[in-house]
């Protein structure tokens, strides 16, 4: 073999070698694993004022997701914490995962993480790795405002449940409280001289009345079709009872074949088939659909109670925003009309490897006090998971409607877990099937078949951790 290494062949060879570097494969391996150091803070003395036994000198590090809620509420709570305990290092970011995943891998996480936003860390994966601190200790501690009442007793229903992932441990605290449902404008209904529809026949009548006025009955963000789940799931639960939803959450075989599911899908399909859905909705983002809704182009939108704050800029003065429970099918429904999906959201957790986990728990206890909770509601106009914290407050129309709707529901609350247990299944599969059905590409039967097939696939996929209702 002769060596023919000239300038040309050298360049060719190095070019070929350079090509190897192009694919994204190296991006992942970049997050190599490393070790962590352990210098955790000892538990201090427990007293009546310090029931968890926080070391009063120890530092606390809190990371807040800087999204729709901002971080002022956390700064205020930290000020309260610092009155009694050590200094707090506060940081905010919109990219929770990007910032914190490396620290989780290194075993050097902060003490409290507000794991929110689109870039949140997958809590199920963290739980599986044993990286999350069980909050039961906090829940059994006396509450900040009344030592005779435990923290657990001050919480709204579903808050503890939302922290559980198939066992008694409570891994996270969802601080905000969201009411999901059919959001509408009271003004719009009044102009049409109709009442809020309680049965599906009434819904059809209301949509027909709207159509005559050149207004659509519904709009939805087709880019994020899982917004439909906010009303679809409780609709299913209302028709067939809570067991139907739990069977779906538990990925039971043929859970989607239940008559209640079929009835709900067919009812929604009817909206599209009769032309009651705003033209263009299948391709809209949440902002676009909310803007159309605010412009009185459509009556109803499936959404959560953050919508008031999010769409504030484009909401007309006279809009009089309100939320109603999902319209039922008819008198044969298993649950009353007031039945509603309302649950705690905006998760906080304490990493198991945190240096000062007890301080983290104490910080959450401060946040769950009436003062912090009311401050949160005032600052960001959202309810909190603290019972009665918003009582007597002057709330904007949408929020006070959400509060009233939630109170009217009483114990008839539904808490579907698909969105946080099986995000991919919920967003892509159910969302995709509903999107295709509402766009008129497939009929309800096929949509259900797609959901069931995806549920079976999820159930048999070993790489996905499974959860069951407890």
């Amino acid at each position: 073999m002769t060596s023919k290494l000239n300038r040309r062949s050298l360049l060719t060879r190095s070019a070929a070698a350079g090509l190897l570097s192009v694919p994204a494969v190296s991006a992942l391996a970049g997050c190599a694993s490393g070790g962590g150091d352990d210098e955790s803070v000892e538990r201090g003395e427990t007293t009546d004022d310090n029931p968890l036994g926080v070391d009063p000198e120890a530092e606390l590090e809190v990371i807040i997701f800087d999204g729709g809620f901002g971080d002022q509420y956390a700064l205020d709570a930290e000020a309260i914490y610092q009155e009694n305990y050590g200094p707090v290092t506060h940081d905010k970011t919109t990219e929770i995962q990007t910032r914190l995943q490396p620290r989780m891998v290194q075993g050097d996480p902060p003490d409290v993480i507000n794991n929110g936003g689109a870039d949140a860390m997958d809590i199920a994966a963290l739980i599986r790795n044993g990286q999350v601190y069980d909050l039961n200790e906090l829940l059994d501690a006396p509450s900040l405002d009344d030592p005779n009442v435990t923290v657990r007793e001050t919480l709204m229903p579903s808050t503890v449940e939302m922290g559980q992932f198939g066992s008694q441990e409570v891994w996270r605290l969802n601080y905000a409280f969201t009411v999901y449902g059919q959001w509408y404008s009271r003004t719009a209904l009044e102009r049409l001289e109709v009442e809020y529809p309680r049965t599906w026949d009434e819904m059809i009548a209301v949509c027909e009345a709207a159509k005559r006025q050149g207004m659509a009955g519904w709009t939805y963000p087709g880019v994020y079709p899982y917004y439909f789940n906010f009303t679809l799931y409780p609709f299913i639960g209302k028709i067939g009872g809570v067991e139907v939803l739990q069977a779906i959450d538990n990925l039971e075989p043929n859970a989607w074949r239940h008559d209640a599911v079929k009835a709900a899908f067919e009812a929604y399909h009817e909206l599209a088939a009769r032309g009651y859905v705003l033209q263009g909705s299948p391709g809209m983002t949440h902002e676009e659909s909310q803007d159309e809704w605010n412009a009185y182009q459509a009556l109803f939108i499936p959404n959560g109670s953050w919508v008031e704050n999010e769409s504030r800029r484009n909401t007309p003065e006279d809009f009089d925003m309100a939320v109603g429970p999902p319209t039922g099918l008819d008198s044969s429904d298993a649950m009353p009309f007031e039945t509603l999906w309302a649950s705690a959201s905006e998760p906080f957790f304490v990493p198991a490897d945190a240096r000062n986990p007890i301080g983290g728990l104490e910080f959450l206890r401060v946040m769950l006090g009436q003062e912090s909770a009311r401050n949160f509601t005032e600052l960001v106009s959202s309810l909190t998971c603290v019972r009665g914290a918003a009582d007597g407050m002057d709330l904007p129309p949408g929020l006070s409607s959400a509060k009233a709707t939630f109170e009217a529901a009483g114990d008839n609350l539904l808490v579907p877990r698909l969105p946080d247990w099986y995000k991919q299944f919920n967003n892509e599969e159910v969302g995709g099937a509903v999107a295709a059905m509402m766009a008129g590409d497939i009929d309800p039967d096929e949509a259900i078949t797609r959901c069931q097939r995806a549920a079976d696939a999820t159930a048999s996929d070993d790489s996905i951790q499974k959860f069951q209702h407890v």
Partner: protein
Amino acid sequence: MESGAEGREDVADTRERAGGNMTDAGAAGRRRSGGDRLTPGLALRLTVAFFLPPRFTPRSVRYDRRYRKLDQYRFIVWFLSLPVLVYGVFVVSPFLQAFFYSMTDWTGYSASYEFTGFENYERMWNDDKFWEATRNSLLLLVVAPVVTLVMGLFFAYMLTAGGRRRNEAVAGVTGSGVYKIVYFFPQVLSLAIIAVIWARIYSPRSGALNAGLDAVGLDSWQREDWLGSSWAIWCVLVVLCWSFVGFYVVLFSAAMSAIPTEIYEAARLDGAGRSVTFFRITFPLTWETVRTGWIYMGIQALDAFALVNVMVPEHGMDVLPSYLFEKSFRDGQAGYATTIGVALFVITLLFATVMLRIGRRDRIEL
């Protein structure tokens, strides 16, 4: 200064040696078979020589046959050692790591994982979504370069040689200077911005596409969900081609203006029209550039991550990089995502190899 003199001396030595070999081929052959064996001492001295500057090369080694090759490589190796080191640490080693991680169940959230052998590969083989993403990626890989390069060549040709003007053999169409700049505009924008803009264009109610279809009376072609439907891949393709064509216009224009005008003049004297001139002269003479552009565009098409991630909804279509991203950062399956990354690596490698092999032509020296 001194070392330069040394270097010249080296060259002289080598030439002398080469001359000797030529005149006395028989002796050289004998030496190769017998007395020129690589003894451990000689090997050591050669090794030492490799790490020393040329002027410290031991005399005994300097006249060895192998020293010539060593000298050649020593120059290159020392030149490249630092970049290669950086490349090794930051590119090659993550690659090797990736192959390892692709055989684990690593979640990406902790430092602990288990070795699972080829389980991820087996899963990938049976994963319909993976194959769907692969199909989309391959479609982009095949179509995007063809469309972009054809458009790029056409525009570049029109800009450099498409015009007909008196007293000039080769000229672009009128206003070609302006066009050249305008075509390059998309290249100035970041891909994320392009994706956001185009997502707006495809938006059903306020978007330019549906409004445009309406304006020309093609209402029935309007769609309510361009990016959520099976049209998404074509929508992405359009954006991909649009954003890169300007780059190729500039690249090909540069290559075309390197072609001597006499050739064009001769062709015109022979009565060649625009298309004949293009296929007989311009295209063959820019082939090398086209091929390079093809590889580059293919890799851009294989990526397409930014466009898909920003424009296409979560339940819509995936390409390999976006599927990889979802598995890793949404589903906490970094191990499996790395497996997909390895698959992407293999596809890219195959593509590059094929492209470098085919279409290899003799270079025409101008």
